[in-house]
């Protein structure tokens, strides 16, 4: 008996710039709201879902059971089990892969997958010096030892350590790493700004047409993505100063890089027969997926171009080429990430991607990028678009992630 995992629908909060309207919402609050919106849309209050998988990139230690806690706070049946997953920015897509695989194996018939992140409510930790001193003091058997441990604390140890998206092995921030890629692949400022402009235009058009009416539920008085600038122009984008890279090579600005964002997104998945029994929309099936990792530490490869390794593997396994896809979703960590990915695919002989098919409803530059929520946002939107195009329409999703990893997935309308 083969099982088919299909995307039935999705829900997310509007995404907002960190430190604004959701500043006091935790990642758990956001995930709970996203789940509750989905539950309401499908009338699932009190229902048991076979499994909920989600995660967050910025996690407090109290969030060890983030997804289960969110489920318990939601309108779902308390008998709904949950799991936390983590794969940096690929977390959301990895959650879809995990749950769809369970559905395909017959271990689940319904699932919710997604992710959440609050850059506003990010954990702030103490320094290693302070942490070790406190641990030593708690192990100490005598007052003297205890005092000695505490005396080792230096004033500098008392500074809190704010979160930063830094690669531990290179010491470079995400933007700094991408600046190297931008230079290496000779991605121009104009191309980046154009991609960013298109992203805002496309997302604005999708909002205006009501595309998100059944994909987004308002939260805390916000009913639209707040980073979206429908009125931005190429001139405005061109006028922004660069923030990553050095000298003439610096082309990356706040306009063509994603902003720190708060939000959550989830997707409802089901075994095809259950979806048909329930008369749920069978938007698209999960065809296949692939993860790859790049050797970025040595500098031989780029931090965020691992999808260029995953895509050919996935295509080969399915006997497909890039021409077989009607739509592409390349996560816009930075405009230059997408552009470098496309260049690399072409240069590596995988094929050329028609830019008109890429991110037709905008992506992370315009919507924002609450790290773990991005996968759920993309899967739900793409599945809906593919369903509109009709049976057989295929879409490819590509998401880059910290640690030099990349996750890709193929969806196909049934």
């Amino acid at each position: 008996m083969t099982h088919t995992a299909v995307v039935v629908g999705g829900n997310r909060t509007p995404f907002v710039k960190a430190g604004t309207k959701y500043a006091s919402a935790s990642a758990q609050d956001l995930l709970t709201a996203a789940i509750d919106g989905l539950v309401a849309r499908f009338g699932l209050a009190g229902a048991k879902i076979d499994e909920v998988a989600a995660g967050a990139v910025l996690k407090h230690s109290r969030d060890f059971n983030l997804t289960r806690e969110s489920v318990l706070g939601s309108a779902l049946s308390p008998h709904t089990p949950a799991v936390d997953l983590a794969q940096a920015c690929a977390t959301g897509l990895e959650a879809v892969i995990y749950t769809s695989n369970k559905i395909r194996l017959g271990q689940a018939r319904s699932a919710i997958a997604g992710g959440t992140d609050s850059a506003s409510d990010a954990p702030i930790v103490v320094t290693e010096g302070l942490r070790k001193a406190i641990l030593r003091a708690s192990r100490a058997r005598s007052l003297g030892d205890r005092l000695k441990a505490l005396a080792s604390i230096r004033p500098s140890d008392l500074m809190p350590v704010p979160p930063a998206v830094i690669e531990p092995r290179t010491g470079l921030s995400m933007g700094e790493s991408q600046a190297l890629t931008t230079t290496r692949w000779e991605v121009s400022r104009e191309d980046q700004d154009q991609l960013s402009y298109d992203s805002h235009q496309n997302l604005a058009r999708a909002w205006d047409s009501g595309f998100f009416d059944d994909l987004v539920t308002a939260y805390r008085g916000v009913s639209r993505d707040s980073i979206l600038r429908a009125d931005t122009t190429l001139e405005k984008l061109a006028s922004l100063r660069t923030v990553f890279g050095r000298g003439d090579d610096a082309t990356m600005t706040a306009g063509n890089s994603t902003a720190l964002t708060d939000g959550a997104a989830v997707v409802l998945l089901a075994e095809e027969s259950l979806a048909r029994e329930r008369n749920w929309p069978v938007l698209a099936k999960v065809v296949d997926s692939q993860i790859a990792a790049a050797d970025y530490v040595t500098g031989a490869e780029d931090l965020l171009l691992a999808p260029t390794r995953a895509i050919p593997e996935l295509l080969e396994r399915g006997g497909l080429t890039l021409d077989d896809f009607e739509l592409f979703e390349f996560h816009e960590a930075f405009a230059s990430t997408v552009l470098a990915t496309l260049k690399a695919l072409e240069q590596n002989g995988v094929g050329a991607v028609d830019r008109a098919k890429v991110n037709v409803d905008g992506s992370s530059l315009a919507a924002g990028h609450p790290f773990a929520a991005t996968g759920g946002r993309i899967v739900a939107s793409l599945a809906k678009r593919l369903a509109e195009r009709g049976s057989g329409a295929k879409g490819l999703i590509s998401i880059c992630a910290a640690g030099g990893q990349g996750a890709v997935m193929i969806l196909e309308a049934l």
Partner: protein
Amino acid sequence: MSVLETLFNSPLGQLVAKQAGLKPPPKLRRGRVLPTGPVVLAELPGADGAARAALGLLDVETADPIADVAENRIADDRGRQVPRPYTTPPGAVVVDATGVRTIAELEGLRQVLRPAVRSLERSGRVIIVATDASAVEGLEAHAVAQGIDGINRTVAKELRAGSTSNLLFLRGDTGADDLVSTMSFLLEGRSAFVSGQTWRVGPAKALHALDDRPFEGRVVVVTGAARGIGTAIAEVFARDGASVVAIDVPAGGDSLAQVANRIGGSALQLDITAADAGERIAAHVARVHGADARIWAIVHNAGITRDKMLANLDEKLWGQVLEVNLAAEIRINDYLLGDVVPGGFGDEARIVGIASTSGVAGNKGQTNYAASKAGVMGYTWELSRQLADRPITAGAVAPGFIETEMTGAIPFVQREIFRRTNSLGQGGRPVDVAETLAYLCSPASGGVDGQVIRVCGQNLVGA
């Protein structure tokens, strides 16, 4: 809260208000709760017995009335001849006046009502059942039918302590089965804020027995459900068993989702003015409840106000209100009344809308709103007429002053005047509107068709 309002609500303010005659209003009996005292049934000569039979169907035991005739009178402490009081305050007095055709026979109403008006328990009920003008012959009988309406409206104004009076006109061939849901509604606390009203009950096109959970297994669509009266409507239908589809604009999505999840319903984010709103409602019903599911009832509650004196009212504010409050409702119904589609209307659908006392009587600064709400009434009457050969019913309620966030924004003094200028001396609650809508939509209310019922505590405006 204004300084004046804070002062008014302080202990001192309340004391002064009491001295000035502004007593706290009576607490109304609400919900599916019958009166505690006996239900007195007064059958005037020629009564057709439908009221007695309907009370029988409700398992309500009836007591005999005291008629205000010479042998029933006693002297009060000042020596005046007054009717003998009831030993136990009646919970309700039901007067079956279906046989009354002459002016002389109206005396029968006076005889049974006089002893009752001062002895009813708190939140008691006067229910008068008479024959509709369409089913009587002769000039005097028509005059008398309307005369009974005058009696009802006046009794409602004279009753105290939260008691209400309402009149039912029975069309020809109305039986107890047709009347029972209305009788139950009027006796119970569900009709708390309905007083001084008259409406018609006729033979139902399809009969259903009365049930405490009448919407069990039935899908009910409520627009504007994210807050205020709409939320109360969704909650009451859910209490009565309905699978509620809660609709509101996407901007209200989070509270809509909360409402839907709390009552085990589902949420549809939809601007009802969208051209394809009807299709999207049907599609949602089919998606959540399966392709065979049908809508039992739709409550067109969504509405907006854009108040301006006519001198300041432009075409935009004019159009918005008419579009949301009236045009959208007509478009959605047109679609759902058309071809049978998955998730569309069932054979016996109930279509109800919300009119307003502003529509009945007009209201300063609300030409657009009054046009839309009076329009809902005109639409409801004609819709019901056009659907005469289908067992679908159409109806509406016209709320008066209801305590909501919207009315809470009215300046304090004005608000206090609005809320007190009705026979019950208080504002209604959203649940009062909801209960009346649920009564109209009840499977057992098939005989209540084309009626607009005011839920206004007999507001002085337009009464």
